C-alpha cells in the first residue's frame, strides 16, 4: 500500500472523467478555497513593493498552509504553525523591518531590476515544471485514503519515545540560537566608548 502507484488505465480520456469527479468532492472545494489565497499570498509576498504588506501577505500564505494541515487531520502541526510562524516569526520580521529603518511606501526599492527578475522567473518556472511534472508522473491520480485526524496525545507519545533524542538535540539548538542572537545583537560597552 505504501508504494502503490495505481496507474490509470486508459490514459488521457480518463483524466477528464476524474476531473469532474474531483470537483464533485466537497473536500476538494475546501482545498481550492484554501489553496488560492495561499498561492496569492505567496505571490504577493515575493512581488509586493511595500515591505510591510509583503510580510503581512506572508501571514495569509502561512495561515493557508496551517488550514491545509488542519484539513489533512494534522491539527497539532497546523496550530503550531499558527502559534510559531504567525505569532512569533512574523513579529520578528516586523521588528527587523522597523529596527533597520527599511524604506516604507510603494516607491521603495525592494527588488532587483528585470535583468535579475527575468532569469529568476525563468528558473522558478523551470523548477516548478520539473518537480510538478515528476510528481504528476509518479502519482497521477492516487487518492489519499480516508484517514482519522492525528491526535495530539499520539503525536506526543511518539515524540517523547521514538524521537526523544532529536527533540533534545533541537532544544540545545534553540538554546544556542537564542544565546547567539543575543550575543550578536547586543551592543558592547566598548563599542559605545569607541563611537
Amino acid at each position: 500500500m505504501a508504494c502503490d502507484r495505481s496507474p490509470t488505465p486508459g490514459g488521457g480520456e480518463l483524466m477528464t472523467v476524474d476531473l469532474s469527479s474531483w470537483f464533485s468532492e466537497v473536500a476538494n472545494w475546501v482545498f481550492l478555497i484554501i489553496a488560492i489565497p495561499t498561492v496569492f499570498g505567496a505571490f504577493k509576498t515575493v512581488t509586493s513593493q511595500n515591505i510591510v504588506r509583503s510580510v503581512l501577505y506572508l501571514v495569509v500564505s502561512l495561515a493557508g498552509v496551517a488550514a491545509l494541515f488542519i484539513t489533512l487531520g494534522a491539527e497539532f502541526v497546523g496550530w503550531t504553525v499558527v502559534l510559531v510562524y504567525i505569532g512569533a516569526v512574523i513579529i520578528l520580521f516586523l521588528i527587523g523591518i522597523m529596527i533597520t529603518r527599511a524604506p516604507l511606501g510603494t516607491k521603495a526599492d525592494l527588488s532587483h531590476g528585470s535583468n535579475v527578475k527575468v532569469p529568476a522567473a525563468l528558473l522558478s518556472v523551470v523548477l516548478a515544471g520539473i518537480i510538478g511534472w515528476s510528481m504528476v508522473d509518479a502519482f497521477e491520480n492516487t487518492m489519499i485514503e480516508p484517514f482519522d485526524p492525528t491526535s495530539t496525545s499520539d503525536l506526543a507519545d511518539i515524540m517523547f519515545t521514538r524521537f526523544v533524542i532529536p527533540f533534545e538535540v533541537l532544544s540545545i539548538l534553540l538554546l544556542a540560537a537564542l544565546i547567539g542572537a543575543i550575543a550578536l545583537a547586543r551592543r558592547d560597552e566598548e563599542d559605545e566608548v569607541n563611537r
Partner: protein
Amino acid sequence: MTVVQFTLLATVLFSLGLYGVLTRKNAVLVLASVELMLAAVNVNLVVFDVYLQDALHAGQIFSLFIIAIAAAEVGVGIAIVLLIYRNRQSADVDQLRSMRG
C-alpha cells in the same frame, strides 16, 4: 483528495520562495522568502505522512522540527541583519560586496 494536488501546491510555494530569494534586495524579505520555501517542505512532509498512514507519524514530527529550526534561523538571521545594519546603515544585500575580488 489526491496526493498530486497538495504536492503541486507545495511546488508552487517553493518556486515562489526561490523567486523571492533571487530577486529581493532587502535582507528581511529574503528571510521571508526562505520561510515560504520551508512552508512548502512542511506541506510535503504532512501530506506524505497522511498518505502513507505512517504509524510513527514521522512526517508530522519532522515538520514540527522544521518549524522549530525555522524559528531559530529567523532569530539568528534577524540578529545578523541588525548587526549589518548597525555597521553599514543598510539592510540591502547588494551592498555587502566587500568580499568581491
